[in-house]
């Protein structure tokens, strides 16, 4: 009796699985037929085939794609003398809004000139790496002295690269100052230290190492400025420090008006 029951159970299980498999097979077949028929009907009706993997879907129908343009022309930095003169005229005419605007423009002009002077003062080659002038950036926003940022890259044909950013950004500098004033935050206990305080030509600095980014050295200058060196594929900490020491930090500091 038991044997018969087992056999019956086995047979019914087999039938169920067979039915499920058969249903799956039928569905696939049905889908395939539907697709073929749909395509054939579409072809007859002149409807283009459905290409769901294409990029065309991102554009709404009928809106053209921009293929290119002249871009924006590079405007010369504001003429400081002209802007000062305009500010004086506007002030005399009691047009204070324009006076303020002209002063902002003059400030921007001064900042860009200063940034260029700093760039000029940086060495053309550092540690056998050559400057890539195409990546030179002097950026100034109109927020008066707080967002002047100067950027330069040196590299060689291999993967070694040095990037320097001289910035006058009160916000970040404040964060860096927090580290300097709180030794506990940077002294790691582990055997391998990836973050520590150092000095570069007598200036307080922090150095950090990350496998994915390489070495980052940040020197705080005076009240709100800082220099950041990002060193990719440098052999060791000493090499980074030697490279940083080749820069005339005091000169940059003086140019930025820091004490």
């Amino acid at each position, binding site marked *: 009796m038991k044997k018969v029951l087992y056999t019956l159970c086995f047979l019914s299980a087999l039938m169920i699985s067979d039915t499920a498999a058969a249903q799956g097979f039928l569905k696939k077949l049905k889908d395939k037929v539907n697709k073929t028929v749909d395509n054939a009907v579409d072809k007859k009706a002149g409807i283009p085939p459905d290409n769901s993997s294409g990029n065309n879907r991102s554009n709404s129908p009928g809106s053209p794609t921009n293929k290119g343009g002249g871009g924006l022309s590079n405007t010369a930095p504001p003429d400081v003398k002209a802007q*000062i003169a305009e*500010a004086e005229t506007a*002030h005399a005419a009691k047009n204070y809004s324009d006076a*303020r605007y002209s002063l902002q423009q003059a*400030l921007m002009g*001064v900042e860009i000139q200063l940034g260029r002077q700093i760039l000029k003062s940086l060495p053309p080659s550092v540690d056998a790496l050559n400057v890539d002038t195409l990546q030179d950036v002097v950026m100034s926003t109109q*927020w*008066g002295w707080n967002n002047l940022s100067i950027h330069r890259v040196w590299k060689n044909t291999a993967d070694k690269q040095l990037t320097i950013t001289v910035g006058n950004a009160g916000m970040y500098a404040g964060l860096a100052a927090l580290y300097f004033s709180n030794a506990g935050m940077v002294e790691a206990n582990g055997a391998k230290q990836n973050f520590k305080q150092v000095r570069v030509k007598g200036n307080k600095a922090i150095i950090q190492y990350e496998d994915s980014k390489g070495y980052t050295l940040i020197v705080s200058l005076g009240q709100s400025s800082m220099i950041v060196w990002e060193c990719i594929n440098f052999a060791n900490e000493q090499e980074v420090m030697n490279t940083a020491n080749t820069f005339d930090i005091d000169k940059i500091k003086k140019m*930025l*008006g820091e004490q």
Partner: protein
Amino acid sequence: MKLFITFIAVIAITSAGVAQDFTKAITTAKTAYSAGKLEDTHFALQQAMQEVDLIVGKEVLKLLPPKIDVMEINAKEDNVASNVGFIGATIHRAYDKGTRKADISIISNSPLVAMTNMVLNTPLLGGMMSDGKSKTVKVQGYKARLEKQPGSTNDKNSYDLQIPLGNALFTFKVDDCTDTQILQFADTIPLQQIAKLIE
């Protein structure tokens, strides 16, 4: 929002500049620039900018009405503070009579005003920020945010009216009044002329 404004005010107060003479600063800037001293030029230009902000502030104070309803100017509270960089200038005036007090503060050239503008112009965001104590109103054609102050009771309410004017924020606060009254008081302030001066 209140915390935010207090934060701005604290920054403005702590870094308030001293009045500088515009002409003197401009002359210094020109001399320094001719001598190639860029850092000195920069500093002098900032001084000139502070001076412009202070003049604008004083002009705005002149435009404000001598009386709001029965409240009179509390001259001791008149204040114009300038700060180059983050905020242009903070202009402040207070009015009072008995228990009723009104307070006007204008923060000019502040990039933070964008936030109030965003709340006013995005109904969804306005709805999310709303706790049933604030609503969007119009004052002399300008969109504004009217907020009932916490701690207000049924018989004595305080209201806060915030009006973004270009990149400046105009805040009008009245103690002991109704929402209709504060809007009536706000109508006596020449907003358009102020906006023209501080834009």
